[in-house]
């Protein structure tokens, strides 16, 4: 008695709202921008983004190709995962290789124990966009990852050099997205802008999304370097005074195998990870990405020259 009927309380849950927003953004791009492509690395954010694209166009197949910017310094199983996923959804895969830019002399590789090709990716990414004439490229970046990303638009305009100008961004209001651009310019689109790391994992759990097993706890040989745990592999070898040891770890992010660290963890399932992330006290990039530690403005500087 006394209760007002249910209809007054129609309200989507937070995950349903985030999903609806991402689906809206993905459809908007497909409807308004010629030749969109989707960045796909096999990392969890790009897997979630692809999952959303599949849902957005159901029952049609995803009407756009995926692009992988390949540094050549990958975890083997991530490449296998990438190829399996592409086959499963019958996608067209474009691979832009950093090695090609090195061979052509467009970029020069660093040397030394901490050398990484991560920095070189930007040149390859821009070449991939140019060669495929992508008018829009979907990226899985989220605003909660890093302070420069907190100011990024959902539709982020890039000039003909791929540059981001934080002082001159287009205002973005309501759900009206302005994707207009000239030939040679492009729009980077971030459908996961409003998702947090915890949202990603909660959604992975809810939707039963398959991720590379690196994201779950496994035993691995690591070395500790600059406060981070780095996996010992063909790219990372113990240096002077470093003793490799085996420990149960998982990766919170998966980037280049030369600069992505792992964290000690026993979280073996999505539900374990949700619980772990909910209790985490260090941001995912802070824990595991040497590339952000270059300087206080590391991400901002890389974005200005065309990085995602």
């Amino acid at each position, binding site marked *: 008695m006394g209760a007002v009927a249910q209809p007054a309380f129609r309200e989507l*849950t937070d995950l349903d709202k985030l999903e609806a927003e991402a689906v809206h953004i993905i*459809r908007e791009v497909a409807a308004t921008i010629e030749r969109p492509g989707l960045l796909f690395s096999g990392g969890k954010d790009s897997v979630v983004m692809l999952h959303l694209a599949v849902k957005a166009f159901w029952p049609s197949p995803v009407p756009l190709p995926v692009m992988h910017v390949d540094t050549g310094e990958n975890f083997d199983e991530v490449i296998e995962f990438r190829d399996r996923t592409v086959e499963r959804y019958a996608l067209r895969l474009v691979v832009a290789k950093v090695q090609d830019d090195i061979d052509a002399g467009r970029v020069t590789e660093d040397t030394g124990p901490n050398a990484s090709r991560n920095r070189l990716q930007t040149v390859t990414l821009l070449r991939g966009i140019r060669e495929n004439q992508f008018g829009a490229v979907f990226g899985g970046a989220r605003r909660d990852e890093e302070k420069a990303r907190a100011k990024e638009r959902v539709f982020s305009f890039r000039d003909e050099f791929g540059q981001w100008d*934080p002082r001159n961004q287009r205002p973005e209001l309501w759900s009206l997205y302005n994707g207009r651009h000239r030939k040679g310019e492009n729009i980077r689109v971030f459908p996961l802008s409003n998702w947090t790391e915890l949202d990603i994992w909660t959604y992975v759990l809810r939707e039963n999304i398959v991720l590379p097993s690196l994201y779950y706890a496994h035993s691995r040989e690591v070395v500790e370097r600059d406060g981070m745990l780095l996996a010992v592999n063909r790219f990372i070898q113990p240096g002077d005074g470093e003793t490799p040891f085996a420990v149960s770890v998982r990766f919170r992010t998966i980037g280049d195998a030369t600069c992505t660290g792992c964290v000690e963890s026993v979280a073996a399932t999505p539900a374990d990870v949700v619980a772990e992330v909910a209790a985490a006290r260090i941001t995912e990039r802070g824990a595991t990405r040497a590339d952000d530690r270059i300087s206080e*403005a590391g991400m901002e500087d890389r974005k200005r020259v065309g990085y995602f």
Partner: protein
Amino acid sequence: MGSQLLRIATAGSVDDGKSTLIGRLLYDSKAIFEDQLGAVERASVARGHDGPDLALITDGLRAEREQGITIDVAYRYFATPRRKFIIADTPGHVQYTRNMVTGSSTADIALILIDARNGVLEQSRRHAFIAALLGIPHLVLCVNKMDLVGYSAGRFEEIREEFRTFAMKLQVADLTFIPMSALTGDNVVSRSRAMPWYDGNSLLHHLEELHVSSDHNLIDARLPVQYVIRPQQMDFRGYAGTIAGGIFRPGDEVTVLPGGFGTTVTRVWGPGGTRLEEAYTGQSVTVELADDIDVGRGDMICRPKNRPHSGQDIEAMLCWLDAGSTLSSGTTYGILHTTRETRASVKEIEYRLDVNTLHRDQSVSGLSLNEIGRIQLRTQTPLHFDPYRRNRGTGSFILIDEATNNTVAAGMILGPSRPEATIAWHSSAVAREQRLSEGTTLWFTGLSGSGKSSVAMEIERRLVASGRPAYVLDGDNLRHGLNADLAFSPEDRAENVRRVAEVAKLLADAGVVAIVALVSPYRAGRDQARAIHAAAGLPFLEIFMDTPLEVAEARDPKGLYTRARAGEIPDFSGVGAPYEAPLAPDLMLRPADGDVAAMAALVLGRLG
């Protein structure tokens, strides 16, 4: 899983302690990670602060750190076990109206910061005005730095009164005042011990408890078609889009604009092919229709008896966002409205509004960066729109400079502007003050059996006895004639309310006290009635008969509750259909206020 998302816009300058407040919310709700806090502590020490400077948490770009300012809208995320929050952090400097407009466009609630020492400043008024203009339903005035005024209740009261007087000129549905100190944390996350005289909630508690689900328009069914899904070799044609208003169910009769073809919804799909029994505002869906009609992006699916306005002549409030150009009459722009893209030229700039004084300057010929004005547009092809106050989704648009492709303006639609050639407004030769008496509308809303009609009839009797013309527009009576064609669906109720509002307006204009006694269960409908009167410059008092459902049901003068509970009246307000209580009625009458005569006296006291 299953918590709600609340979008917050903040306004105020660095001096008001806005960054500190946001830092405090993130810090105390444990949304700051150790590495971020570590970075802030290092930076704080480097600048000679003792303890972490919470304002540094929200400092983003290098240019901002160097200049100590905030350039642009930044988004912050935090969650409590009850809710997830997105903060659009917008700078409050004079030149940044554009950013606040941007950050406010999707907000559920606005937080406006005031330094208790300085009180209500010009910029506080500007922030409140923009929040109201952008249709943010809830506003909280955060009276900050209470520690610097000795936690004085008197100072808080002064600020509250001053701001309330100003806010009455704006249409703010829900206004809350909280005294706090972001620096010390008083009343931010938990209640302050330093201010025992304050008996309200802490800010975070207020944000967690805020009721927002009735802010969405669930009445006017609107689905702008975004994308047509037609897989090859499959008998499927789906119209995908995000619902901009109302509810869609399989079996609904719908009309597709601009063609105007009628058909039926056969199936409603969620993302990935989840079959839905109903879908509502905010959901991204794909619908299938019974007939093979020509539907494409930019078309609007609605209900046959509840359509948006369709037209090329539109009146709107416009905020100019571009530093590199100005708006001038006669210029053509690209316009993006729902999923429709066309071109529009500005026919007239009626006035520019000074956002600090609300003064209207009719002598202007253009609008430049951060300026707001009322304009008339003509579009190349018709748009299907609703007034912004009724629907933020179908009432908003952006203008795009066709040479630079930049987004140069944000628009909020007021309604169709009628070209003189088709329907002219004939001005009466009698001015309002020449009429024999002064008209007003008294709008009684409340559940069936709450006592609306009884009090309305008593007021009518007393007014007429005193020689003042008055007339009761009773909801039940009107359904015998003027509204005999309407049923009780949300659409028909909306039309019922609109018609009664228009009749009341005419009576009031003629000098009569129009007394409306109508359940009018939806807030949006009552707001529309108020807007109709405001547009005509007529007084309007919303009187809420706040009789609890149990009491009204126990009275059950017409036996309707019994029938509703038996399932005979499915759409009965309060039983099988919602009743949205007013958030800020002009007068509230409760059973404790006395009998019918006592209540009538209370209302007449307000009438003057």
